[in-house]
């Protein structure tokens, strides 16, 4: 076996090793990485900074992968020298490692502009996981952050810091943002969107110095103004790491120069990724490095033949609610521009057409068509006949299944370079039928993740099992998916369970579909449905939880877990009077009276004088709280009163499955808000709103929905998510399954980052449901029928 040494454990180096492993084994592989992490997805660092992903989520190749493939991994060791005559590399730990073949995947580092004081504490770059973690530990509400550089990376860093609560200013040298990807108009639209998010954008600003003593206190600009700053992020561009290659005697220009076979000027040394220069171009994106890796693997393994001819690159800004896409040459030299803009909507689209073919594209505010344009750019197809439909495609005839119109050679995942054909092959040949299998088999959607929707439509269209799963026929009694049933209820104006069963089902229903339909008619009509108690589970007929012996458990609402001596006395009296066999403190900061007879329920409720805690139903359970600023010396928010208010806002509503909530006054998280369906975590100056957590049958850490400054804003975000869950989840689907099925990106986009009109519609439907809701225990005084709680008694016996 020949010794292959790889310098660089980033996406390019490891992608190339993955490709090499597909060929027949011929190398004993050692990988040097100067970071201390296994290979991770660098382009998702902005999602980590924004709290949307954890650092574990972005791992691409876990340590087991290296072990499985017998790869020696030298983490934390930087290669400091190459002796190309002896064919050895020297590590920062003093080790000397011989190689037969050397692969340089050294990537790039931040370009540091000539600014004084860049060595002060609080000045960061944004290139690595360690940079990101350091930034996370420094950021928070009230922290003033300055980002130098208004390119992709700078803007994503700015948004991440702002989500963490920082007060963020972006300083940009040029007159418009992202000028390498956008024209001036596109840049202006983008600046408007950044300002709308609450990020200050200052253009035409040259930073001259970082101010402060040991630690940064501000930045000085060339116009003699200063801006206060606790944190400065330098994201002014990147430059290829070529020092090693230069010392090894390779031909180096701006990057390590490679030919179409990805060969350098030394036959034993190869290079890939951001550190190379191919046909005069240095790339800083993922798609090219994957294409390069494939060609290079062929060359290195003795299968020289495939050539790399360059990549049509596309840039996409990964900021939720700020959709920006740019590809090709949009400069307009000898080209005809095709434009659309709508300032109110914040949408700007520009195509450049040269010789009847698409040359470049800019999309701001609506990037839904980006795949279509990328395809036209890649295949250079003549668009003369489609000239009228460049910006507004004709409506698809098959119900908008855009994926069907793509050719098999069309790229679905631009980051990793996976075509539609490759995905279809994986589905047919290797039985792929879930998104995670698809990721494992093809690596599709493991880059920026923006093609997830396309991949899913493809799976739905091609994989038989996935189709079944997605249709998810609710029950043989009503053979439709829940989405279809919602639509049937809405469009056919069906207000009762029996109507749905009579018209669209078998007329009978069963214990599975009846409760589900009961929920669906309730949510579609915002509580204005015709209630049919016979379709409800016994718990929802008598508003208590049936126990193994047919008795019931009674849990009154104790909002936020805060009670009073008077309430406790009444509970004790009830327990005595009705000989309640067990009185138990629940895990939800409430009190459970177990073993109550059905016929005693109305009297028990009346004596308690407390509302129903809905502990028996698929509805709003409780809001668990800590004592917050009321008493706790660490509290930063009044979590107790926020929890009580939250419980009042949501109580008495029904949901696809139970909804548990919590509010905590600080990140110590004493009431475990990050494992609740909705959890508010108080931080200095605001709240983090978490959703989709669980600590029951499943254990799942909640996802951050948004960070807001006020309690009202936190409640509003919770309402948007709550109503969205009510309207889109399947019955019996908990939030933790729901957010994974839908994807947090889409959840955010359709709730807290939805257009105002959509948000208002969600709030309005929530308000209507809330107005019609009521405390179910009132039925103790006014039962829905005379035998709701009491058994029948025989009138007399008649001897036959």
């Amino acid at each position, binding site marked *: 076996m020949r010794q292959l040494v790889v310098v660089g454990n980033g996406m390019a180096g490891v992608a190339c090793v993955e490709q090499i492993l597909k060929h027949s084994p011929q190398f004993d592989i050692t990988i040097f990485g100067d970071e201390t992490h296994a290979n991770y997805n660098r382009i998702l660092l902005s999602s980590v900074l924004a709290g949307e992903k954890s650092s574990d989520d972005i791992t691409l190749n876990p340590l087991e992968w290296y072990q499985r493939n017998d790869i020696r991994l030298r983490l934390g060791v930087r290669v400091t020298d190459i002796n190309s005559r002896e064919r050895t590399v020297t590590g920062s730990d003093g080790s000397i490692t011989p190689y037969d073949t050397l692969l340089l995947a050294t990537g790039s580092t931040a370009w540091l502009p000539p600014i004084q004081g860049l060595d002060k504490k609080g000045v960061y770059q944004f290139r690595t996981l360690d940079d990101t973690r350091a930034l996370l530990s420094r950021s928070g509400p009230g922290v003033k952050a300055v980002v130098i550089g208004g390119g992709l990376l700078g803007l994503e860093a700015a948004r991440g810091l702002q989500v963490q609560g920082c007060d963020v200013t972006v300083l940009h040298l040029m007159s418009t943002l992202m000028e390498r990807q956008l024209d001036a108009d596109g840049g202006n639209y983008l600046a408007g969107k950044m300002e709308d998010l609450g990020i200050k954008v200052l253009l035409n600003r040259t930073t001259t110095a970082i101010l402060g003593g040991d630690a940064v206190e501000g930045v000085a600009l060339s116009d003699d103004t200063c801006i206060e700053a606790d944190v400065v992020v330098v994201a002014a561009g990147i430059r290829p790491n070529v020092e090693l290659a230069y010392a090894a005697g390779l031909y180096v220009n701006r990057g390590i120069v490679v030919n179409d076979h990805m060969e350098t000027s030394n036959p034993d040394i190869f290079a890939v990724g951001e550190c190379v220069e191919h046909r005069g171009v240095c790339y800083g994106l993922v798609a090219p490095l994957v294409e390069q890796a494939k060609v290079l693997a062929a060359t290195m393994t003795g299968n020289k033949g495939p050539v790399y001819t360059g990549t049509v690159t596309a840039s996409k800004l990964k900021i939720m609610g700020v959709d920006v896409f740019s590809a090709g040459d949009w400069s307009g030299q000898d080209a005809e521009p095709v434009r659309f803009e709508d300032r109110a909507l914040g949408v700007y689209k520009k195509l450049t057409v040269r010789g009847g073919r698409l040359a470049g594209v800019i999309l701001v505010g609506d990037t839904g068509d980006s795949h279509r344009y990328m395809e036209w750019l890649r295949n250079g197809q003549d668009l003369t006949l489609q000239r009228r439909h460049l910006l507004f495609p004709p409506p698809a005839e098959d119900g908008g299944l855009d994926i069907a119109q793509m050719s098999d050679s069309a790229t679905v995942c631009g980051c990793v370079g996976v075509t539609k054909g490759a995905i279809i092959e994986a589905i047919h040949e290797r039985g792929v039928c879930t998104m995670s299998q698809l990721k494992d088999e093809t690596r599709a959607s493991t880059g920026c993740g923006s093609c997830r929707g396309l991949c899913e439509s493809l799976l739905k269209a091609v994989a038989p099992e996935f189709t079944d799963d997605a249709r998810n026929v609710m029950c043989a*009694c009503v053979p439709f998916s829940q989405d279809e049933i919602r639509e049937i209820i809405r469009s056919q104006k069906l207000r009762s369970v029996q109507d749905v069963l009579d018209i669209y089902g078998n007329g*009978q*229903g*069963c*214990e599975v579909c*009846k*409760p589900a339909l009961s929920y669906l008619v309730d949510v579609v009509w915002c509580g204005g449905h015709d209630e*049919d*108690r*016979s*379709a*409800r*589970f*016994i718990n929802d*007929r008598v508003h208590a939880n*049936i126990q*193994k*012996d*047919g008795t019931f458990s009674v849990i009154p609402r104790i909002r936020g877990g805060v009670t009073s001596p008077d309430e406790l006395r009444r509970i004790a009296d009830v327990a005595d009077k009705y000989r309640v066999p067990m009185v138990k403190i629940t895990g939800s900061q409430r009190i459970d009276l177990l073993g109550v007879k059905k016929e005693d329920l109305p009297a028990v409720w009346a004596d308690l004088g407390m509302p129903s805690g809905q502990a028996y139903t698929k509805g709003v359970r409780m809001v668990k709280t800590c004592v917050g600023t009321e008493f706790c010396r660490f509290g930063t928010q009044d979590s107790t009163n926020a929890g009580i208010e939250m419980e009042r806002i949501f109580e008495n509503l029904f949901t696809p499955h139970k909804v548990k909530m919590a509010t905590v006054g600080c990140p110590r998280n004493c009431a475990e808000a990050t494992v609740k369906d909705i959890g508010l975590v108080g931080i200095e100056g605001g709240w983090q709103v978490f959703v989709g957590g669980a600590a029951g049958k499943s254990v799942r850490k909640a996802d951050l929905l948004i960070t807001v400054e006020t309690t009202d804003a936190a409640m509003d975000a919770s309402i948007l998510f709550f109503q969205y869950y009510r309207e889109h989840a399947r019955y019996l689907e908990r939030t933790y399954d729901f957010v994974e099925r839908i994807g947090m990106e889409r959840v955010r986009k359709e709730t807290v980052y939805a257009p105002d009109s959509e948000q208002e519609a969600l709030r309005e439907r929530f308000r209507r449901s809330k107005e019609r809701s009521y405390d179910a225990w009132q039925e103790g005084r006014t039962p829905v*029928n*005379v*035998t709701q709680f009491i*058994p*029948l*008694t*025989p*009138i*007399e*016996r*008649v*001897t*036959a």
Partner: protein
Amino acid sequence: MSASIWVRVDATQIPVREGRAVMVGDREIAIFNVGDRFLAVDGRCPHKGGPLCDGIVSGDTVVCPLHAWKIGLTSGQVERPTAVAACVRTYETRVEDGLVMLRIEAAESAA
């Protein structure tokens, strides 16, 4: 055939597709209003004694609220799980003057 008695019950108070318990002596019987007629069976599920009157009605079957055993209301047979051969006693019913008459074997109604 042993003598039997009829017990009169005001079952009009049972909403359609719901059941209610009625105590005849110390025997609990579940009566169901299945829309076009009334059906009556022993009140407790043969599995773990769940209250059948609290189950969801599906056609002429009821599903026990505890563990979802399904009982045929005309046959008394356990229909799910299918491997179980157990059954519950059924009671003949007839409606007279707006009241439901339940037929009980005399020997069993000694209490």
